[in-house]
């Protein structure tokens, strides 16, 4: 009995579902239209009420369809995060901004929550698809019955026998199918489906990013063409008409592009390309007041400067290699950059003709046809796009290699840079050395030496007084002894400053531990050195750590410090980590600059990571080999 009733009611239910198609579709269109002003005009504040209303209406659809089809549809919306509260200052902080009231942050929080909720998109998809699905499925029973009833009138009575029972029999299933399809889209997205969706989105974003980067590189390569023309014009005018002043810019004006490409090669292609250009030298002034540039002498400084600059640019092979690169790059770099994205985009446009052809739109085979067949372009396009996606990351890498071939420094340029650096660090080392010798001389002169003179004088006085006034002589003796003790104390401090005894006696590890013990802060020291570095390196390392530790104690107001000293892969690495206030900058602090110079003599480097508010990590590296394998691995806390 029930079945009969269900079968009888199903076509009516189908009609109701079909009737819903119009408002649901209108709702979907309205939602789409709403995003126009919100996104295009930026009227974000207008968004929440319609969104909330739209969700309420969608819930109404859920209930209606649930009631009609008997398929319960759960509500999928994620709960909103809590409304932001004021912080201690009564302000509202959202990401990097501070707001006076909660309105703006609350708006942003809700908008991003709605945007992140997969239910939003699924709702919209359901609304826009509903008329087609419901129109096809739900209307069918009623349509069959109507056709069956109408058939005799049209002279096909046999159709009644077939259509009406079919409509009645299929009705419940079709209604249920409509409800089930709606449930699939309107219920919370299943976790596995969500994961697949997220992975798909990420894949598209990754590939898209690579394609866009390739396109950007290709575009930059094409941009080189007009620059090349300018360079050639400059060279022709400069050499042909003797407009010499045009020559340097002709070789140099596109350097920004070369440098940009070096940087992009590092950031995007993972190919490190150092900057190869020679650095300007100080003008050399001779005793006769003239300036020497190479083998020429100039009277005026301006002429000398111009000629020095000219020589620097004209004779630097890096500039000529740049020019050669500029000439070849539009072809090679352009192709490598643009081919993948063209394969993907252009060929898709190409297949579009085929898609149109499937729908019966004809426009001839002059465009988007493979072997004269427009439809055959579709598989060809799909394959080409796949090749493009496959090619894109490889092309990006090849692009980096290509860039490095001509834009990296030649062996000679590297050597020249090395000489430059060695000259600089040698000057620093000699300066530091001279300064230290002067300081030692002054300390000895003002300290120990003066005290020894004083002792000598006191001894002379004692000699005179010994017979006449033994009591006074005794007093002077005590004084002489104190003076000698003071002299010894000063010498001790001096020696410590030149080369701490514990460093020569025990090596870097124990010297750093002794340093930690004397620092007056809780300092943890971890040392892992299987041997001793060469003495000068050891000394530089010791003083670098001492300076870093002193900085941590003095400026950073650190409560505790961790020092780590280890040797790996031919590099002695020392890190000083403190929990102080941070904000250390090698460009400002003379202490850190001093460390840098000290380490620079041995090709060492200094890296400071010190955000404001701390913690500070000072990393110092010195390339060196260790001698005399003697194990000293241990940790200590002071």
């Amino acid at each position, binding site marked *: 009995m029930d079945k009969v009733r269900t079968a009888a009611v199903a076509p009516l239910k189908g009609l109701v579902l079909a009737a819903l198609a119009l408002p649901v579709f209108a709702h979907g269109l309205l939602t789409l239209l709403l995003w126009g002003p919100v996104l295009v005009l930026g009227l974000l504040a207008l968004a929440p009420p319609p969104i909330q209303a739209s969700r309420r209406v969608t819930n109404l659809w859920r209930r209606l369809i649930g009631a009609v089809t008997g398929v319960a549809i759960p509500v999928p919306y994620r709960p909103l995060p809590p409304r932001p509260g004021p912080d201690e200052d009564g302000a509202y902080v959202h990401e990097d901004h501070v707001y006076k009231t909660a309105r703006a942050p609350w708006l942003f929080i809700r908008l991003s929550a709605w945007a992140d909720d997969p239910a939003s998109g699924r709702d919209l998809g359901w609304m826009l698809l509903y008329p087609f699905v419901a129109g096809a499925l739900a209307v069918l029973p009623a349509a069959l019955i109507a056709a069956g009833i109408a058939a005799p009138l049209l002279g096909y009575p046999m159709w009644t026998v077939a259509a009406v029972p079919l409509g009645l029999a299929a009705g419940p299933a079709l209604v249920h199918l409509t409800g089930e399809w709606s449930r699939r889209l309107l219920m919370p997205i299943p976790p596995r489906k969500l994961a697949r969706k997220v992975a798909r989105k990420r894949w598209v974003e990754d590939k898209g990013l690579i394609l866009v980067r390739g396109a950007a590189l290709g575009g930059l390569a094409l941009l080189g063409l007009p620059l090349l023309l300018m360079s050639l014009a400059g060279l022709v005018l400069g050499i042909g008409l003797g407009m010499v002043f045009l020559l340097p810019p002709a070789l140099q004006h596109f350097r920004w592009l070369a440098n940009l490409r070096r940087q992009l090669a590092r950031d995007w292609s993972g190919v490190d390309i150092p900057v190869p250009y020679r650095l300007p030298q100080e003008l050399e002034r001779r005793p006769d007041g003239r300036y020497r540039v190479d083998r020429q002498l100039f009277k005026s400084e301006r002429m000398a400067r111009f000629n020095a600059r000219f020589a620097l640019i004209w004779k630097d092979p890096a500039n000529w290699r740049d020019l050669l690169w500029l000439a070849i790059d539009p072809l090679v770099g352009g192709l490598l950059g643009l081919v993948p994205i063209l394969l993907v985009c252009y060929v898709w446009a190409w297949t579009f003709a085929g898609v149109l052809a499937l729908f019966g739109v004809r426009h001839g085979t002059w465009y988007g046809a493979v072997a004269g067949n427009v439809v055959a372009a579709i598989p060809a396009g799909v394959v080409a796009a796949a090749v493009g996606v496959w090619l894109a990351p490889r092309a990006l890498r090849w692009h980096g290699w290509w860039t490095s071939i001509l834009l990296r420094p030649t062996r000679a340029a590297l050597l020249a840079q090395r000489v430059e650096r060695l000259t600089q660090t040698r000057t620093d080392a000699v300066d530091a050395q001279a300064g230290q010798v002067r300081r030692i001389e002054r300390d000895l002169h003002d300290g120990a030496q003066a005290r020894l003179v004083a002792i000598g004088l006191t001894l002379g006085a004692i000699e005179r007084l010994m017979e006449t006034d033994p009591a006074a002589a005794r007093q002077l003796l005590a004084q002489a002894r104190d003076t000698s003790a003071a002299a010894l104390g000063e010498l001790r401090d001096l020696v410590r400053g030149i080369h701490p005894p514990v460093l020569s*006696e*025990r090596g870097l590890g*124990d010297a750093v531990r002794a340093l930690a013990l*004397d620092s007056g802060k809780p300092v943890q020291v971890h040392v892992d050195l299987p041997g001793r570095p060469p003495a000068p390196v050891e000394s530089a390392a010791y003083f670098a750590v001492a300076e870093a530790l002193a900085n941590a104690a003095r400026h950073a107001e650190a409560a505790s410090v961790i020092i780590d000293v280890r040797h790996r892969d031919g590099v002695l690495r020392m890190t000083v980590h403190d929990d102080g206030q941070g904000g250390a900058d090698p460009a400002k602090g003379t202490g850190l600059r001093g460390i840098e110079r000290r380490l620079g003599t041995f090709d060492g480097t200094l890296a400071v990571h010190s955000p404001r508010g701390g913690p500070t990590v000072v990393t110092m590296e010195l390339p060196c080999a260790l001698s005399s394998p003697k194990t000293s691995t241990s940790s200590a806390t002071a």
Partner: protein
Amino acid sequence: MRVVLAEDLYLLRDGLTLLLRSHGFDIAAAVDNGPDLLDALLTERPDVAVIDVRLPPTYTDEGLQAALAARREIPALPVLILSQHVEQLYARELLADGAGAIGYLLKDRVLNADQFIDAVRRVAAGGTAMDPEVIAKLLAPRKATAGRVASLTPREREVLAEMAEGRSNAAIGHKLFLSESAVGKHIASIFGKLDLAPSDDVNRRVLAVLAYLSE
């Protein structure tokens, strides 16, 4: 009292020999390098050894290493280390075995013969003689940091420093112009604040203090 002396500078070795002899010590051996020192310490088993940290052949901490090696063989062998500089690190290593009979002085202290001889005798008797500079370094940094030592009054800190140098209650009282019983009270208070069980043994108290300070 038999002494083994290790000092590589001839003048100083000679001077120390004279000084010790004139105070009634018997010089069992006077050596000028590390291997000989270890040999002498182990064969002579002196009542006290006076040792320079830096000795040939390596001119590093040869003397200190020999002293530590000898004390591993002969526990609590009295050793007085002399050095041009004092390091907390070395003081800790010397005190680490907790056996006492340790001295660690700057070479300058030899200039004051009476104090030096006093220190030698104290070490020979199983006590300690720490250079005031070591004590100052041990105490000074702790002032800044909050800890149990920070809870000491300035007077108690003074008493602690004197104690750590190895002085007896009477000597501390004499130096700080206190009665012996007042010194005793201060020391009891220090031990109370540092959570150390009181003991009659001067040496162990000092070691306990130093052990605490160098923790």
